[in-house]
C-alpha cells in the first residue's frame, strides 16, 4: 500500500513496484485506489487546505502562452491557487540548476526535493508539467519527502502522485475550483 512519507533512499518507482497503474479514463487514483474523480478532487482539496505550506507547481505547459488552452489554464491555475490560499512556485523549464537554485522562487524536476525541503511544503499540486518530468520529480519527492503530491494531468495521470487526476482540461479545472469552494465551506473557512 502506497504510503505517505519518505519511502526510500533511491527514487525507485514506488507505485509501479506495488502494481499501481494509472486510472482508467473518467476515474482518478487516490493512493492505490481507483475512485471517482469527484472523491479524489475533494481529498486533494482537503489536503491542500489542511496541510502546511500548500504550493502549486505550474509547469511550462501552463506558464507560457503557446496556445489558447494554455492561456485559459493559466487563469484557472491562478484561481485555484487563490481559492486554496496556496503559494505558486513555477517549474519554468527543466534544466538542472543545482546548486544555484533559489528554492524559494523556483522548482526543478531534477531536484524538486530541495524546494520542498526548503519551504517545508506538505502538500503540492503539479500542473502543466510534461509527463516525463512530472514522473521523474514525483518519484524523487516520494522517496525523499513527506509531501502530499497531487497531479492535475492533461494526459493519463501519474501513479507516483498520492492523488492523480487525469484528462484535466479547462472544464475539469473549473470543477476542481467548485469542489475546493465546497470543501472550504465544509471546513468552515
Amino acid at each position, binding site marked *: 500500500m502506497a504510503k505517505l512519507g519518505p519511502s526510500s533512499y*533511491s*527514487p*525507485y*518507482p514506488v*507505485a*509501479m513496484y506495488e502494481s499501481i*497503474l*494509472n486510472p482508467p479514463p473518467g476515474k482518478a487514483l487516490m493512493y492505490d485506489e481507483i475512485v471517482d474523480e469527484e472523491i479524489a478532487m475533494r481529498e486533494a482539496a482537503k489536503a491542500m487546505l489542511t496541510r502546511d505550506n500548500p504550493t502549486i507547481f505550474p509547469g*511550462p*505547459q501552463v*506558464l*507560457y502562452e*503557446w496556445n489558447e*488552452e*494554455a492561456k485559459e489554464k493559466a487563469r484557472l491555475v491562478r484561481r485555484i491557487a487563490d481559492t486554496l490560499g496556496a503559494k505558486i512556485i513555477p517549474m*519554468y*523549464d*527543466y*534544466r*538542472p540548476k*543545482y*546548486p544555484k537554485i533559489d528554492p524559494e522562487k523556483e522548482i526543478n*524536476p*531534477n*531536484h524538486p*526535493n*530541495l524546494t520542498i525541503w526548503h519551504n517545508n511544503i506538505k502538500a503540492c499540486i503539479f500542473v502543466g508539467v*510534461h*509527463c*516525463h*518530468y512530472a*514522473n*521523474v*520529480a514525483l*518519484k*524523487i519527492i516520494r*522517496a*525523499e519527502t513527506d509531501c502530499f503530491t497531487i497531479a492535475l494531468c492533461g*494526459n*493519463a*495521470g501519474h*501513479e*507516483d502522485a498520492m492523488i492523480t487526476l487525469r484528462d484535466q*482540461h479547462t*472544464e475539469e479545472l473549473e470543477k476542481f475550483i467548485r469542489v475546493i469552494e465546497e470543501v472550504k465551506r465544509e471546513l468552515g473557512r
Partner: protein
Amino acid sequence: MQKTQQVQYNRAGQRVVSPEYLLFEAPREKQFMTGSEVVKEAVKRSSVDASVSYPITPQSEAAHMIGELWVEGYVGVYFRGESEFGVMSEVAGCSMAGARTVTTTSGPGTLRAMENFPMWAGSRLPIQLVLMARGVNTPLSIQPDNLEISFLLDTGCMIWHAENAQELFDMIIAGFVVAEQPDVHVPIITAIDGFFISHTREAVNIPPDDIALPPYNPYKSPLVPIDMEMSPGRFLRDPYVMKSNYISYAAHTSWQYEVRAAIERSRPYAKHYLRGLIEEFGDPEGEIVFVASGTAGAQAKEATQIMIHEEGIKARVVRIKTLRPFPYQELLQAVQGAKYIFVPEFNVIGWLEREVRRALYGNVDIPVIGSPRVAGGMTMPPEFIVKEVLEYLGKEVKHVI
C-alpha cells in the same frame, strides 16, 4: 473539449479510423503474402510520417517497400542512411521532430546501432523498430537466429515477438498505438524471426487500405517535441550529467526508473490491443508445457499437435507475445498443473529460458528444461522437439524416422 464527429482524412487521403476499428472491426480480406510484404501493408495503414532504412538481410525487402510507400505518398520522409548507427540516429531525429517513425533492421545491424536504443528509450521516443532477427556474426551468417533479442531486452524499449505474418501485421499497428500512449511513450521493437516470417508466404487477413490510424500527436508526448512550437525553451533531453553528486545521481536514477515504469504502464494497453500478453494452445490439461516466443512458439505448437495426435501425450504451449513487459502474472497462472516446462529457442544462450526461470523462481516448483535449442540458422523441426521431449521422459522415440 468536445471531439468533432466528422470524418477525417490523413495526409495520404486515407480515412482516419480508431485503432479498435482498424484492428478488431474492419472487414478483412485474405491475402497470400510474405512477412516483408506484410510490413508494407501494416505501415500503409498506420499514418506513418517518417522512415529511414539501410540494407541488411533479411529486412531489406521490407525497407524497400516502405520506400515504395513514400513514393506513393503514404510515408512523408524516407531515405537510406549511412549505417545502422546513422539510421537509428536519423529516426531519432525524425521522432524528436514530432513524426510517427518506423525503421527495420536485422542481426549485426542491431548491434551496430545498439547505442541508440537506450537513447531512444531515455528520450521517450515512440519509434517502432521492426526487428527481423538474424543472429550475430562471425563466422559470417545471414541465417535466422534470434540471439540479438537478448541484447535488446534491457535497453528500455518494449519488445513484442510475433509468431507469424498475421501477428506481425497486427502488432505493427498496435505497436504504434501502445507506444504512443502519453503515459507509455517508449520505443517499441516488434520482433520476428527473420526468414521464418519475412520470407515465408502465407495467408494473412488484412483490412482495406483506404483506412488508417489517427495521425500521431506529438504534443501529448511526455517530453517536448523538438520543433519550436511548444514551450519550454530550455530543457534537457539527456541524462543529467552536469553535476556529480547525490542530487544529480538521484535524478538520473529516477529518470531510468521512469523509463522502466513506462514499459510497465503499457500492460493494459498491450493486453487490450494484442488480446492478451500470452497465448495458450493445445490441451489445457497438458502436463508438458512449452513456453516459447516467436517461431519457437510456432514450432512448439506443431510439436504439441504431433504429441497429442500421434503420441497420446497431453501437451500445451504458452506463447509469450510481449518480452518487455514480461508477462509474469500471466505466465505463472498459465503453467499451473505442468509437470515439465520446456523452453525451445532459436539461439545459443537461451535468453527466454533465463526469463522464464526468473519469472517462476520461488513461485512454482516445476522443472524448467532449456531445450530444444538450435542456433546459427538451423531450423527446429517439430519432429525434433518431440524426440527431445520423449527422450527426456524416457519414452520410446518412434515418430521420427
